[in-house]
């Protein structure tokens, strides 16, 4: 099993954390994992992209040439990275911020992640809504594993945020089922 995921969005939309939670879940399941964040001159509002490779075998290059999955949060990221999906690959997009076209040979899943997060009361959890959606589609990790990683990330000062993140995860898991294209 090898899953190559490109995650992209505005700086500040939490793609870094989304990828890190998946990477930590992979590590907890004793899988090989490489997570290569972009470290360019991105600032809040710029496009940030992350390469995440999860595999049952040793991973050589952490840079993805063809992605199994593209998770995108905003329009510029969608435009920039949609060509990197391999044939029959998966595209998960945030319809709150993206107008998309029909792409041949790509399985498209949509979810209004920003809207769902806003309705929950905190737009910052839109990344976790996406995470929930992704978990339902690919089913790589158990919910318990992901919740454990969330707990680790939201310890200390951020402890109070655990509840809303759990809700975001659940909403993402539910919403994706009804919105599959």
């Amino acid at each position: 099993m090898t899953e190559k995921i490109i995650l992209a969005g505005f700086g500040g939309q939490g793609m870094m954390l989304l990828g890190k939670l998946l990477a930590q879940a992979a590590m907890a399941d004793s899988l090989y994992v490489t997570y290569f964040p972009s470290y360019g001159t991105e600032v809040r509002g710029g496009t940030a992209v992350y390469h995440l490779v999860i595999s049952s075998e040793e991973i050589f290059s952490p840079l993805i040439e063809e992605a199994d999955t593209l998770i995108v949060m905003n329009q510029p990221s969608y435009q920039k990275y949609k060509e990197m999906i391999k044939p029959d690959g998966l595209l998960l997009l945030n319809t709150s911020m993206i107008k998309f076209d029909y792409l041949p040979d790509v399985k498209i899943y949509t979810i209004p992640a920003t809207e769902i997060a806003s309705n929950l009361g905190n737009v910052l959890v839109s990344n976790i809504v996406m995470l929930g959606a992704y978990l339902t589609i690919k089913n790589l990790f158990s919910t318990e594993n992901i919740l454990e990683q969330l707990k680790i990330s939201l310890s200390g000062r951020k402890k109070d945020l655990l509840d809303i993140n759990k809700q975001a995860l659940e909403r993402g898991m539910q919403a994706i089922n009804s919105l599959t294209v």
Partner: protein
Amino acid sequence: MKQLLTGNEAAAEAAIYAGCRYYYGYPITPQNELINYMSFRMPQVKGTFIQAESEIAAINMVYGSAAAGGRSMTSSSSPGISLKQEGISYLAGSELPCVIVNIQRGGPGLGDISASQADYFQSVKGGGHGDYHVIVLAPSSVQEMADLVYDAFDLADKYRNPVLILGDAQIGQLMEPVEFKKEFKENLPPKDWALTGAKNRNKRVIKSFYPVKGELEVFNAKLQSKYKEIENNEIRYEAVNIHKADVILVAYGTSARICKEVVRKSNHLKFRIGLIRPITLWPFPTEFIRNMSERARCMLTVEMSAGQMVEDVRLAVEGRCPVHFYGRTGGGVPTSLEIVKKIVEIMPKNKAAKTLLQFAGVK
């Protein structure tokens, strides 16, 4: 327990494990996670962290605490490492152990902040002035970064010599699971040459200045015999699929990871590809490469530079087989497909080589 860390963070934590309690740095992308990690970790272990006023100040602070016997470290990226070269020459000339981490970025000049391997010459051929060598270790994964930084402090003390860790922006920024399995060192044995105050003992001198005619030549001969000893004892490399290989790839660090993918792709073909990955760039695995060159049809050196290590490969091979080169510069990272295409290009009459292309998905 495994942790998910960047190469930069792993280098910092490994230094703490190895008993390093003196770190001096100055910020530069792409090694900032290292200095950031040290800034909160050093106080936790009662160590010293100083964000110096410049790279030059930082390397000379290393000189000071190394002379006093402490395990000391600095880190930077290419332009900052250039600034440190005078200090590195003085450290080598004063036989002071220390560890310097270079997370290479594109050059020359201010270049860019992307991954590069263009500081090979600077690292292994001197960099500063005078007949000296630093031991150069090149990790190709986050775990290896941790392991090599840990070993670097032991090597530095063993030979009283600076050790350079040569990484690049990709190894520095990449996150992978890493485990610190070795002993957490705290109370290291005292050094019988360190400047610790001469009360009740004879004075000790740390210097790199030998103005009396003849003295410096004697000292240089001593240095050279030390380097010979390092060459005899400390060469490290990894060989993959090397026996009966038609083409042997030679690459280190990030480039070597991509070459491994090419080796894997060739595994079930009649056409065999092997890989030699030097882990110590100085001392260089000259003899091993020479021996292997007698069996292979040709070698291909892959680097993120315009061709630097390839010169050492050619010096090792001494014409026994052709040595080809493929490189990307200025932040470009080779892809496995590019390397496969290069192999087909250098073996135009080999039909088996072309099967590689099909396997790589090219019609």
